[in-house]
Structure formats: C-alpha cells, structure tokens
C-alpha cells in the first residue's frame, strides 16, 4: 500500500543526550524481544539510563479492519492479535455480541468454552515458561515445556481444527461438539502435566542461579500498579488479587471453585510463581469441568446476519496476560461502527521504561521476559 521512505529518525532532546552515552537498539529483530518490539536503550556501559520502546512494527490497524467487516467476519481477526491465547479473544468478542443482542448460550457450550479457554491458558503459560527461561540462558526448560504443549496443541486441534489461531466459538455456542475420546485424552493430558510439573520446579524454581537472576529484579511497587493500569500475572505478582474471572464473573466461572494465586514480592520471581500456580489452578478447573459437563446441544438459534441493536457495550475477559476489554459501538447495521481493544500487554509494557531505568542489560531482558508480552497484541 505505502512504504515510509523516511527511516524513523529518533532523536532525544539535546539535554538528555550526553556525549559519553551509548545508544543501543534492542530490537526490532532481537532474540530477547519475542516479536517486533524495538527498545531504544540509552546505556552507560552495561547499565541502562533510559529505555524507550518504539511500537508499531507489527501494526495492522485492527480497529479500522473491524469497521470494514461484518460482526461475524471480525472473529478470525481476534485470533491474530494474541496468537497464544486466541480462545480468550474469541470468548471476549463472542460474549460481547451475545451481551448486545441478548443471545442465550446453552450450558454445554459454556462448559466447552471454558474447558478450551483454560487449556489455551495452560499452553500460553507453558510457552511463556520456555521463553522466559530462554531469556535467562537456559535452553532445556523450553523443550520440556514444549513436550507438554505439543500434546495440548494436538488435543485442541482435534476439535477446533487449528493449533494456534483458533476460530472456534460462534455467537450463541461453539463450532464443534466434544466427544468421549476428547475427554479421555484431556484426562490423559492432565495426568501427564501433573507428572511433569514437579520436574519444572526441580529444574528451575530451586536453582540458585535462577534465584539470583530473578529475585528482586524488576520490582513493581503496589503504588505503580494502578498508575499504569497493569493487570494479569504482572499485577498479581505485586500483591493485588485482581482477576476478571472473579471480579466480573462471566460464562460459568462462578460455578467453578478456583483461587487466584498472588505473590507479594512484585519481582520476576513473584510473576514466575504466579504463572506456574495458575497452571495448577487451570488444571483443577479442567478437572471440575470434566467431572460435571452437562449434555445438550452446543449452538443456540441465532439469525444468519447478526445486527446488534444500536448502542455501545464493553466486555472484559481474563486472558493469560491480563484483562482484555473490548468496547464496541454499534449503529444497528451488520458492520461495527467503532471497536476498541483494551489489550493487557499494552499497559504491562508501558511500565517497562520505568522499571528498566538503572538496570543491567541482562536484567532488562529478564524483566521483559517476565512481563510475558505478545507484541502483535500491543501493536494491534
């Protein structure tokens, strides 16, 4: 369409740029940024003076695309924003439209939705676990996490048809039913996962080098959390027990018994422990779902062309990275008038420049890894 001929020249006000400084480009193509994030680091030796993320390398103007598509056609684009937890995004969009149009979802479909979303949360945390350890220099945990995640992706592929970018939920239900073999395989996965989790803790959590690399590194003070609008494990690592599944319950979460893991330290180790505890919580939730999944049909009666009544609405959902809120304005036609995606990684990254000040380069990468960022979600 158009290319910007002028390279983004980036210059600080003269006052900030001393002569002795050493400007380092972390990204946009760098093993540590897991995506096209560019951070301009102003370094003094190995210590970072200022860090300024430059965004937009993966920007596709999702919100304008949503203004050219019908309500149903926007669903596949949801999976392209946060490809690690596409089902949470599916759920947010589908619940939003159901809330606006007032469709009822049959209970079995709700159970299948939460079952697949929690499996998706585990697969997202497993990938984060591997990537975080890769940032700290350990190669093996990545492969161990993928050993389990592979089984999970195969499992989800049997009913959704895709491994990463799911387009599985439908307005008023789900795309496909769950049969006995799927439930048996899920149980097998749960047992394998529970057998492997202690191995993760032995290999990593106790490790003295890992402790030195993560303990009180990148501490987020409770004072800052509301200033930057943090959410998800990044927030729960600093002592705030805010989880959208508990605070604004949707779908069948009120019927499931699960507690929200919280750490008080607010450092990389705290966020790490919160996410591993969340894998346990999700496993328990799936147990409860497998135990009492009701029978019945999986798709409510829904008109062919979806036309939500005029007005606006918002839907908040807990993705593995935090609170995703979609705010949509409808003018009664089959095309959304305005859609705004409030993405968790956007807020979680905005605190990075404050946290990276004065840290070592190695710590800055540990912090970036512990924030569990998905860059296409930030760039939208």
């Amino acid at each position, binding site marked *: 369409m158009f290319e910007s001929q002028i390279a983004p020249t980036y210059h600080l006000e003269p006052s900030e740029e001393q002569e002795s400084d050493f400007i380092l480009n972390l990204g946009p193509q760098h093993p540590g940024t897991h995506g096209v994030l560019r951070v301009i680091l102003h370094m003094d030796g190995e210590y970072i003076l200022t860090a300024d993320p430059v965004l937009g390398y993966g920007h596709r103007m999702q919100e304008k695309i949503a203004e050219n598509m019908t309500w149903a*056609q926007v669903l*596949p684009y949801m999976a392209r924003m946060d490809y690690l937890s596409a089902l949470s995004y599916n759920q947010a969009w589908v619940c939003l439209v159901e809330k606006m149009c007032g469709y009822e979802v049959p209970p079995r479909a709700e159970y299948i939705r939460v079952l697949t979303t929690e499996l998706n949360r585990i697969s997202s945390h497993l990938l984060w676990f591997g990537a975080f350890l890769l940032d700290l220099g350990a190669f*093996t945990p990545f492969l161990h996490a993928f050993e389990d995640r592979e089984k999970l992706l195969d499992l989800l592929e049997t009913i959704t*048809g*895709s491994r990463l970018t799911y387009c599985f939920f*439908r307005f008023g239900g789900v795309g496909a039913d769950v049969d006995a073999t799927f439930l048996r395989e899920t149980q097998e996965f749960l047992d394998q996962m529970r057998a492997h989790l202690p191995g993760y803790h*032995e290999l990593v959590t*106790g*490790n*003295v080098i890992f402790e030195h690399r993560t303990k009180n590194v990148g501490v987020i003070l409770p004072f800052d959390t509301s200033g930057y609008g943090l959410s998800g494990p990044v927030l729960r690592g600093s002592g705030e027990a805010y989880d959208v599944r508990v605070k604004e319950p949707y779908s069948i979460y009120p019927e499931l018994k699960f507690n929200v893991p919280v750490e008080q330290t607010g450092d990389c180790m705290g966020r790490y422990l919160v996410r591993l505890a969340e894998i346990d919580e999700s496993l328990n939730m799936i147990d409860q779902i497998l135990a009492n999944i009701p029978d019945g049909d999986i798709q409510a009666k829904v008109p062919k062309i979806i036309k939500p009544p005029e007005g606006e609405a918002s839907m908040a959902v807990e993705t593995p990275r935090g609170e995703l809120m979609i705010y949509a304005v409808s003018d009664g036609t089959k095309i959304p008038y305005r859609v705004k995606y409030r993405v968790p990684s956007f807020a979680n990254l905005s605190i990075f420049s404050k946290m990276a000040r004065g840290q070592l380069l190695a710590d800055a990468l540990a912090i970036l890894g512990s924030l569990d960022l998905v860059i296409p979600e930030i760039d939208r």
Partner: protein
Amino acid sequence: MIKSYVRDIITGLGSLLTGMKVTIKVMFTKGNTVEWPRQTAQLPEKFRGHIMLVPNESTGFAKCIACGSCVRACPSNCITVKGAKPEGAKKKSPTLFALDFTKCSLCGLCVESCPVDAITFSRDYALVDYSSKPFSAMNLLDDVASPFSGGSE
C-alpha cells in the same frame, strides 16, 4: 557469618545437582519425535487444508450452486465464483471457482455459510512450489467433473 556463607554454598550446590538430576533422567527417557520422512504423524480428522468442492455422489458434479454466500462470508475475500445454469438443469452450477489461498486464514466461515455444504477442508498439508502464483488462483473445479459440455471458461 561463616555458617551462613557455607550454608549458602551447600544449598546452592544442592539445587544445582537436583537440576542436573532432572536433565540426566530426561536423557534416558524416550521423547516422541516423529522422524518425518520415514514416519508420518497421524493427521487429525478435523485438519484444515485449503478448501475444496464436494462432488455429488451420483453425478460427480460439484454440489455447489454458485450462490456466492461463501464469497460474502469470507473475511479476506479470497473466493471468486461465477456460475451459469447448464441446459436441462434446475440449479446453477459454477463455471469458475477460484481460491486465493495466499490470503485465506482457514477460519472456516465459508464452510459454515454454504447452504448446500458444497465446501469442505482438504487434507493435503505438503503444499510446496517455487512461487506463490499457483496458490493465488487455485481453480477448485479441476478436481470435480464439469456438467457443461466442453471445458468450463
């Protein structure tokens, strides 16, 4: 001071050894790598290759009636359909059914929107070519018989 100094070293060393125990244990367990050229992984039943036209069992022609609902349903408008009514038949039949697979996101909205279930996902995953040109205009009519006498446009 000395006691905590020595204790730190001992616990540190201990944690390193437990870590090493895990890796050596994994070294002797068998991973489940599928050595691709010799063994092939089992394809799940709901696997999504590029879409293809479903032939009618009896006549062998495509079930598709060229109504274009899949064209409207597709978010990245990668399907183009032209249809005409072959002589002596009630319903239209597609003369051109082209898929731009380079833009398709395999979301399945077309498969669901088809009133006569004329489209399903194919199962071939090893699509490879020297350029993307052959995939940008895949003619799906090649794999089904054509009701029109002579070749379709």
